[in-house]
C-alpha cells in the first residue's frame, strides 16, 4: 500500500467515522435516559434510508433536503417506542434487548413487504465526483455526509450543554428520581429525547443510503457498530464518541483496504465481542445507577 493510498484510506475512514458518531449518539441518548438498549436502532436507520430513497426517487430533490423529511417521518415511531419502553419490566437492559429484538424483526418484515428484498442506493449525481485536497482525492458524497453528521453532532452538543432542555435531559439521565424531585419534567425530557433520537436516526438513514446499498436485514450491523462505540466512549460523552467514531471508521476502512469488504461484518462482530469482554461491566458504567 503506497503512502498516498494509505492517507486516502485514513481520510475516507475518518469521514465515515463522523457518520458513525451521529448514529451512535442517537443510540446512546435513548440508553442514557431510559437504560434501554435499542436493538432495532439500525433497522430504524435503514427505514429512514428507505423512506429517503422513496422520496428521492419520487421527487428528485437533493438528498440533503430529504434528511429532515425522513427524520420527521420517524417521529410517530418515536412516540410508539417511548410508550413501549415505558412499560419495560426490570432488569431494563435485558428486557429492552428482548423487546427490541422483536421490534427489529417486525421492522425488517415491514421493509421487506414495502420494498421487497431489493438493494437500494440514493445515487444522486449531486454527490458523485471528488475534490482534490493536497494530494488526496476525497469523495464528495462522503464529505457532504461527514459535514452533515458533524453539524448534527455539534448542534446536539450545544443543545445538551447550553439549553434548559439539555440540562433537563442530562439531569434525567444522571438520576431520574432526583431530577423529578428537583422539579424537572422527566417525562417531557424523555419524550423529547426519543423524538430527537429517532429523528436523527431517520436523517442518518438518508445519509447512509447515499453511501451504502440498503437492504432490509442491513440494520443489525449498524446497531452493533453503535453498541461498540457506546462501549468505547461511555454513555453521554460526546467528544469521546466522536474520537471513537473516527477510530472505528478508520479501522473499518483499513480492514476493507487490506482484505476486502467481505471481512467488514466479521470485524465489527469481533470488535463488539472483544469490547464487551474487555469492559465486562455495564455500558452505563461510570454513571450513577
Amino acid at each position: 500500500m503506497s503512502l498516498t493510498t494509505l492517507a486516502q484510506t485514513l481520510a475516507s475512514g475518518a469521514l465515515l467515522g463522523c457518520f458513525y458518531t451521529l448514529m451512535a449518539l442517537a443510540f446512546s441518548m435513548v440508553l442514557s435516559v431510559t437504560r434501554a438498549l435499542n436493538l432495532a436502532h439500525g433497522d430504524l436507520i435503514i427505514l429512514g434510508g428507505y423512506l429517503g430513497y422513496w422520496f428521492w426517487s419520487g421527487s428528485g430533490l437533493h438528498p440533503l433536503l430529504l434528511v429532515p423529511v425522513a427524520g420527521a417521518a420517524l417521529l410517530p415511531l418515536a412516540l410508539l417506542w417511548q410508550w413501549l419502553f415505558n412499560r419495560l419490566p426490570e432488569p431494563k437492559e435485558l428486557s429492552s434487548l428482548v423487546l427490541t429484538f422483536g421490534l427489529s424483526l417486525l421492522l425488517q418484515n415491514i421493509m421487506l413487504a414495502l420494498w421487497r428484498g431489493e438493494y437500494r442506493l440514493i445515487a444522486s449525481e449531486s454527490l458523485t465526483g471528488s475534490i482534490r485536497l493536497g494530494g488526496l482525492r476525497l469523495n464528495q458524497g462522503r464529505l457532504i455526509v461527514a459535514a452533515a453528521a458533524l453539524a448534527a453532532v455539534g448542534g446536539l452538543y450545544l443543545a445538551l450543554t447550553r439549553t434548559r432542555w439539555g440540562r433537563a435531559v442530562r439531569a434525567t439521565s444522571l438520576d431520574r428520581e432526583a431530577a423529578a424531585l428537583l422539579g424537572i419534567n422527566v417525562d417531557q425530557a424523555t419524550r423529547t429525547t426519543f423524538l430527537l433520537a429517532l429523528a436523527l436516526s431517520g436523517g442518518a438513514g438518508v445519509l447512509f443510503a447515499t453511501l451504502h446499498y440498503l437492504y432490509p436485514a442491513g440494520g443489525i450491523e449498524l446497531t452493533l457498530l453503535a453498541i461498540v462505540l457506546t462501549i468505547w466512549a461511555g454513555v453521554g460523552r460526546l467528544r469521546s464518541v466522536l474520537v471513537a467514531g473516527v477510530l472505528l471508521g478508520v479501522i473499518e476502512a483499513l480492514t476493507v483496504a487490506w482484505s476486502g469488504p467481505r471481512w467488514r461484518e466479521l470485524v465489527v462482530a469481533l470488535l463488539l465481542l472483544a469490547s464487551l469482554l474487555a469492559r465486562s461491566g455495564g455500558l452505563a458504567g461510570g454513571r450513577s445507577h
Partner: protein
Amino acid sequence: MRRLTWIGAGLVAAALLLLPPLSGFHPYYLYLVSTALLFGTLATAWNLLAYAGQISFGHAAFFGLGAYGAALASLGRFSPWWAIVLGGLLGAGGAGVIGLASARLQGAYLALATLAYAEIWRGIAHNWSEVSGGGAGLIGIPPLPPLPWLPLDFTRGRAGSYYLSLAFLLVVLALFAGILHSRLGLAFAAVREEEERASLLGVHPLPWKILAFALSGFFSALAGGLYVHMVRVVEPDLVFSRYFSILPLVMATFGGLHTLLGPATAALGLYLVSELLLQPYVPVFHQLPYGLALIVVVLYLPGGLAGLLPSPRPSPHRGEGR
C-alpha cells in the same frame, strides 16, 4: 390443572405420532412439522441455558456449528449418524468456549456477547471458503439412511426424518425433566438465582455455567446436524441466520421460561401458525407472530403463556418441582 397439562401433552404426542399415516405421508406437511419439532428442540435447549440464568441471543452459532460439522463429516465419508454426533460435539465445544470467555458477563451484556459470537461464526463461514464453501455453502449432503429394524414406510425419506425429529424432541424433553429433578438442576437454579450467593454456598458458578452452555449447545447442534440432513445443503446465511437465535428465544419466553413443556409447545404453535396460516396468504408477514409474541411477553406476560396457568398448589410435602 397439572393433570390437565399432562393429558393435553399426551394427546399432542399421540397426534404427532399418528400424523404421517393420517396425512398420507404428505411430504410438505411432514417437512413442515419436522422443522417445527426441531425448533421445539432448539427452544428446549435454549430454555435449559436460561434455566441456569443465561439468556442467549446467539443460538444460531451452536445450531450452525452443528450443521457445518455434520455436513463436513458427512461429506468426508462418515456415516450421517456419526456426522450428526460430531456436529453436536463441535456445537458443545463452541458453546463452552463462549460460556468460558463470557464468564464475567451477565444479563444484557452476555446476551450481546452471544449475539456477536453468532455473527462471528457467520462471518467465518462466509470467509473460510476452503472449508465452508464460502457464501455458496456446501451441497450434496447425503440423506439419512433408513433404519433397518423398522418398517420402511416409517423410516424412509420425510417420514424417517419426521420420526427422528419427534424422537429427538422427546429425548431432550426427558433429559430436561431429569435435569430439573437432579442435583444438576439445583446447581443451575442456584447459579440463576444468584451467582454471588451460589459461590458463597460452595457452588462455584463458572463450571456450571460452562456446562449449561455446553449441554444447550450440544442439543442445539444436534438439531442443526439433523436439519442439514433434511435440507441437504448448508449455507452461512441459512444455518447461522439470526432466525435460529431469535426463534428459540421467542418460543421459550412465549411458552414460559423454565417450564418443561412450554417452549416446545410454543415452538410448534408459533411455527405452524406462521407457516400454515400466514405463509400461504401473506408471505411477507409470516414472521409477524414471533415479533408480536415477543412484545406481548415482555410487556404483558412476564411468565410467558405458562404464567396464564394457575401455579401448582403449594404441596405440603416439599420436594415436588423446584
